[in-house]
């Protein structure tokens, strides 16, 4: 590991990747496979596959609070405590609020994973492709700016990453949710199949499908070569998987990069800023604060990939000021940090179904069913823009009547019966990026690494409220017609951020006057810096975004390496 006393030569690489999460891991794999000496900077600690999953084989009774988070931790860390996955078994993979404060101009619960692998360790693993109905959205509906790419530009890269990651799915033939390179799907449950058939028979252009997910339902040689084996359907993914059954940087891209001999991984390294050389007209390296010693060291490379997760990618660029770029690196347009958006996950609906009493499920499944967006797809048809996708999950639980006490109660607990089929959906709504939804640096306060504290000023708007109402109406109608009963809708009123799909601030676009990145994810004004994490997103659509980040990253590295060879960057 380099330190401050080593020569500049020892601190010079072909490529630097900031961040080791889902997109940084892909940048590392692609660069090192193409023969570039690559430095990956990770602000958190190292987490080695298998070795650093302390809870992965623990039984429920081994957790002192059976999964619950103690009150003292909740009180100190209100934001992270609202995250569905912040439980006793995986809390060591999440950043506590007080470990890295930010200023909420409006309520925003930022969920972060500061470790090698980032949030790819705890992600929800849903992987749906975008289509041109998504890429053409802003241009058609007149918001944000036009995406500089279309489905055809990214489709081969979706295929490329899907084959390596391993995606379980069905070819559904839905125009607005293109099929990919799929491993076999797992089962839908009986009630999910029923609802799928019901919707197909009663609604034109609405579909219930198996939710495509990054799980090895049937590993191929490329996965075995990574050291990963078949998903064992444990549903304990957030602890890290000893089988490598789901995709993470730790189980897949990073060990793959390491095998090339071209990877240098440096944990405990907070990137303070990117160094811009005015004479050369490009970035030459990064300033890194060692989190243990608090010393600052510079590292150099010909190309820099910023994959620090959307919020911190914005923070690094905003803090990378120079004479040429007084408002942040590449920020001639003034749009850096603006047009930040997310997914609206506020709506939930649950119900039960009284049929199929003699049928149940057996085992566990790490995904659920999925309804691709059906609102405003072919044309504008509602009083709000865009639409939402929805999860759909149905199963049965063992239950008992817990009244009374003594031998009677014990008998009931010892002979639990299957309850009726439950069903439930959650909403994944597209939000419209707005200029006022932005990230800015505080003028005075700094974090413990000497970087200005970030303001987050992002909220819901009228479009989101109308869409939420429509989700409740449409789902209630479908549930009612399908014969589901005891239908309950609920608005969680959760703050943005808890969706963990924060996007934008460094958006792609054709025009340097209104966007930060070109169609290859290069900063318009500093072309050897690429941004391929959530920060690059021009709009959000409704799909879980990680698959798109991975595909954009592999495509951008390919472009960067050929540009380096041609001397273009």
């Amino acid at each position, binding site marked *: 590991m380099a330190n401050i006393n080593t020569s500049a030569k020892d601190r010079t690489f072909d490529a630097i990747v900031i961040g080791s999460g889902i997109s940084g891991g892909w940048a590392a794999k692609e660069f090192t496979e193409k023969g570039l000496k690559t430095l990956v900077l990770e602000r958190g600690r190292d987490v080695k596959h298998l070795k650093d999953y302390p809870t992965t084989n623990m039984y429920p*009774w081994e957790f002192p609070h059976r999964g619950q988070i103690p009150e003292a931790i909740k009180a100190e860390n209100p934001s992270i405590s609202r995250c569905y996955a912040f439980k006793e078994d995986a809390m060591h993979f999440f950043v506590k609020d007080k470990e890295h404060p930010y200023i909420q101009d409006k309520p925003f619960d930022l969920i972060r994973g500061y470790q090698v692998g980032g949030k790819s360790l705890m992600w929800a693993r849903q992987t749906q492709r975008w289509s041109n109905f998504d890429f053409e959205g802003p241009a058609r509906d007149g918001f944000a700016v036009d995406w500089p790419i279309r489905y055809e530009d990214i489709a081969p890269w979706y295929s490329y990453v899907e084959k390596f990651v391993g995606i379980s799915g069905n070819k559904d033939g839905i125009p607005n949710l293109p099929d990919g390179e799929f491993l076999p799907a797992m*089962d839908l*449950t009986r009630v999910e199949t029923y609802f799928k058939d019901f919707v197909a028979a009663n609604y034109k252009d609405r579909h219930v499908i198996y939710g495509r997910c990054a799980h090895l339902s049937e590993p191929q040689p490329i996965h075995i070569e990574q050291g990963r084996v078949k998903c064992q359907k444990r549903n304990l993914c957030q602890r890290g998987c000893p089988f490598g059954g789901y995709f993470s940087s730790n189980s897949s891209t990073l060990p793959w990069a390491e095998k090339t001999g071209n990877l240098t991984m440096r944990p405990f390294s907070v990137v303070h800023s990117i160094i811009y050389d005015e004479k050369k007209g490009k970035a030459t390296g990064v300033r890194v604060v060692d989190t243990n010693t608090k010393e600052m060291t510079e590292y150099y490379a010909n190309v820099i990939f910023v994959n620090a997760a959307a919020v911190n990618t914005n923070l690094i660029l905003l803090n990378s000021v120079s004479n040429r770029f007084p408002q942040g690196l590449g920020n001639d347009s003034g749009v850096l940090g603006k047009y930040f958006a997310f997914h609206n996950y506020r709506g939930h609906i649950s119900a039960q179904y009284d049929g199929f009493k003699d049928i149940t499920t057996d*085992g566990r499944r790490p995904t659920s069913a999925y309804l691709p967006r059906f609102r405003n797809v072919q044309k504008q048809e509602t009083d709000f823009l865009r639409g939402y996708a929805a999860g759909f999950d149905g199963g049965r639980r063992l239950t008992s009547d817990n009244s*009374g006490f003594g031998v009677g109660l*014990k008998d009931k607990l010892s002979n639990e019966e299957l309850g009726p089929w439950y069903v439930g959906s959650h909403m994944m709504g597209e939000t419209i990026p707005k200029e006022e939804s932005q990230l800015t640096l505080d003028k005075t306060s700094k974090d413990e690494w000497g970087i200005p504290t970030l303001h987050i000023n992002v909220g819901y708007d009228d479009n989101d409220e109308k869409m939420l109402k429509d989700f409740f109406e449409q789902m209630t109608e479908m549930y009612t017609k399908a014969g589901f009963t005891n239908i309950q809708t609920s608005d969680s009123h959760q703050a943005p951020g808890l969706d963990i799909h924060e996007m934008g601030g460094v958006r792609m676009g054709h025009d340097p006057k209104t966007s930060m990145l070109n169609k290859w994810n290069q900063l318009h004004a500093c072309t050897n810096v690429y941004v391929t994490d959530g920060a690059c997103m021009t709009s959000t659509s409704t799909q879980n975004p990680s698959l798109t980040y991975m595909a954009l990253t592999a495509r951008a590295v390919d472009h960067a390496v050929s540009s380096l060879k041609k001397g273009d960057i």
Partner: protein
Amino acid sequence: MQVSRRTALKQVLMVSAGIALLPSCLHTTPATLKLKNLDVNGDDEKMLEELTATIIPTTKTPGAREVKAQQFALTMIDDCFNKEAQQKWMTGMKEFEALCKKQTGHSFVNSTPAERESLLQSLEKEEGPAAHFYKVTKRLTIQAYTNSEYYLTKVEEYELVPARFHGSIPVKDLTKKTL
């Protein structure tokens, strides 16, 4: 004799530990669990053990006593309840003991099985502080029991590695209950 710094420190610690223990020694034994927030002593803990064992008794199979449900309940209330909920439970516990004395003439620990059952029977239908204490304790007792190693290996098997998922299987084809 020269007293080393280490020895001196040790003596100070021993003396202060003695002082700290003294007041509770006068009344009763301390709880076996180290609690951060709850003021619960050994008698209270014994009462809780008897209460949980009345809720889920030992039969031919283990009950609340064997899975140490009272320790789990105390841990959860001490760590996972907020101050207000802790206070409400503590108040309820005192009321519960008082109610027991009023009904039976002695403490819950010294009550007969029939007296205990009649007390719990009445609380099942009531709302006050004592009933609140009973219902919260009962919920935690059930949680302790159904999440115990015994229950999750012998009653409903928790499989760490299921390695299968069938979405539609006749109920009659299931050979065991699994989670």
